[in-house]
């Protein structure tokens, strides 16, 4: 089934009776060439590109819950390529280019909206840092515009520019950044993978990883044992548990990140606006809800909900920046479990077990990475070589101290990102 405008029109006129399920619901086979553990954004995109780019279609994605029930369906959907360090820059640039062609590629409406991402600054020092970052983005071939106060005012007149603590001095604008519909990204990749022969197996929790003589042989699951030539671990917040099944301890701590949405309002916030000093960012969904969030709750957690201090902190920061949102009523809040790495950057690498690969450490920024992560991880799993856009995400960088990618410049320590 191909989606098109004509098809939507036809189905609308004929009672919507022609739509079909977007993917099959197969029982697990006893053996696959590749097993991907985790049916989030990264697991699904990995499976898709294994089939699409490398012709490896005897693949299963094993998901303990339902597809897209993890962080890929819980994030605030921001897509951007505004990184400043080698290792990250080329990777997120690659990802943004994949985003720009994604809807045609998948024949799926992921509601990619390049509405622009605006990062605000409030001091001379911050402006200098943003100017440097903007130059790094331009050097990478992406877009960045340094705006002064009046430039920001033209875009977002509704801010409290003269806030006593954080007056708005300007902002770094990234026009190609924006948002996408998170569930649709998972569904689009799922459908694309399924059509190429990948088995998407839900309600199938991996409970063990079988290793013989240093080589992976398959996995144990709640739906039986499955043999596999290669296995990829792509389980975000659960990375430590699954890696432990292969006897590994990871440089990962799991933390909860919360997000919030208000009742639907008329269009009022046209961009993604971030207020880093206050730990607050916001955009408006196409349905009209103000979608916003802040920082992690700042202690290890596997509860997919947060605590009140972080809620208050985010609300206060929002009111500080844009008092006009004070009358909007919050409908829902929720949390997702983030795989936090010590330097804030991800891991896409082999492990010491032959045939076992690891993809984790996405912190709070892995949604924008979904296309490139799958693309580069599939490349690594298929060819055993690093994709040129993802050479920096080595697992051993913490042990060796070489190649740390500390974008925030706070030091590579667990409680600092």
């Amino acid at each position, binding site marked *: 089934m191909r989606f098109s405008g004509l098809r939507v029109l036809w189905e609308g006129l004929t009672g919507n009776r022609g739509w079909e399920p977007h993917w099959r619901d197969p029982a697990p086979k006893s053996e696959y060439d590749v097993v991907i553990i985790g049916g989030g954004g990264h697991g699904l995109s990995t499976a898709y590109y294994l089939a699409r780019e490398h012709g490896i279609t005897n693949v299963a994605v094993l998901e303990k819950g339902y597809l897209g029930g993890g962080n890929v369906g819980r994030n605030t959907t921001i897509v951007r390529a505004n990184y400043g360090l080698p290792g990250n820059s080329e990777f997120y640039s690659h990802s943004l280019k994949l985003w720009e062609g994604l809807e045609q590629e998948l024949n799926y409406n992921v509601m990619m909206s390049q509405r622009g991402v605006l990062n605000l600054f409030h001091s001379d020092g911050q402006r200098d840092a943003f100017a440097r970052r903007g130059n790094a983005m331009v050097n990478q071939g992406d877009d960045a515009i340094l705006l002064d106060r009046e430039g920001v005012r033209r875009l977002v007149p509704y801010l409290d520019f003269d806030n006593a603590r954080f007056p708005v001095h300007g902002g770094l604008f990234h026009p190609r950044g924006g948002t996408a519909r998170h569930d649709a990204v998972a569904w689009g990749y799922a459908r694309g993978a399924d059509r190429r022969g990948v088995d998407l197996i839900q309600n199938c929790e991996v409970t063990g990883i079988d290793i013989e003589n240093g080589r992976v042989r398959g996995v144990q699951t709640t739906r039986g044992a499955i043999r596999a030539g290669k296995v990829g671990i792509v389980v975000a917040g659960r990375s430590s548990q699954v890696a432990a099944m292969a006897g590994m301890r990871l440089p*990962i701590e799991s933390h909860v990140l919360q997000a919030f949405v208000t009742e639907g309002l008329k269009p009022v916030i046209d961009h993604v606006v971030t207020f880093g000093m206050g730990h607050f960012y916001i955009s408006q969904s196409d349905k009209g809800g103000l979608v916003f969030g802040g920082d992690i709750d*700042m202690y290890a957690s596997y509860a997919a909900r947060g605590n009140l201090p972080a809620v208050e902190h985010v609300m206060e920061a929002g009111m500080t920046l844009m008092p006009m949102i004070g009358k909007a009523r919050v409908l829902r809040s929720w949390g997702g479990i983030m795989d936090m790495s010590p330097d804030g950057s991800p891991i896409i690498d082999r492990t010491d077990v032959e045939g076992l690969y690891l993809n984790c450490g996405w912190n709070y920024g892995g949604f924008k990475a979904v296309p490139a992560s799958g693309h580069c991880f599939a490349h690594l799993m298929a060819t055993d070589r690093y994709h040129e856009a993802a050479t920096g995400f080595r697992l051993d960088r*913490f042990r060796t101290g070489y190649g740390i990618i500390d974008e925030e410049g706070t030091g590579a*320590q667990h409680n600092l990102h």
Partner: protein
Amino acid sequence: MRIPCPICGERDRREFYYKGAAVALDRPGPDAGEAAWDAYVYLRENPAGRTRELWYHEGGCGAWLVVTRDTVSHEIFGAELAGEADV
């Protein structure tokens, strides 16, 4: 979350700074080697369940505490002064 500080009594989580897994109490010697330092600084058990971690009573008495806590339910089982805790 409320943390029972042995000195100040039960206090709101906001008064505390979070350091992370209590592994930080078990600092290796300077020449313990790369693997020991990797384990100390970076590698974490990161359990889903009961864990021991270091919290600092920044907004109170200034003591470092070892807090036993469940990372799934956020239940807190107890806190002791780091100086008196078993490593």
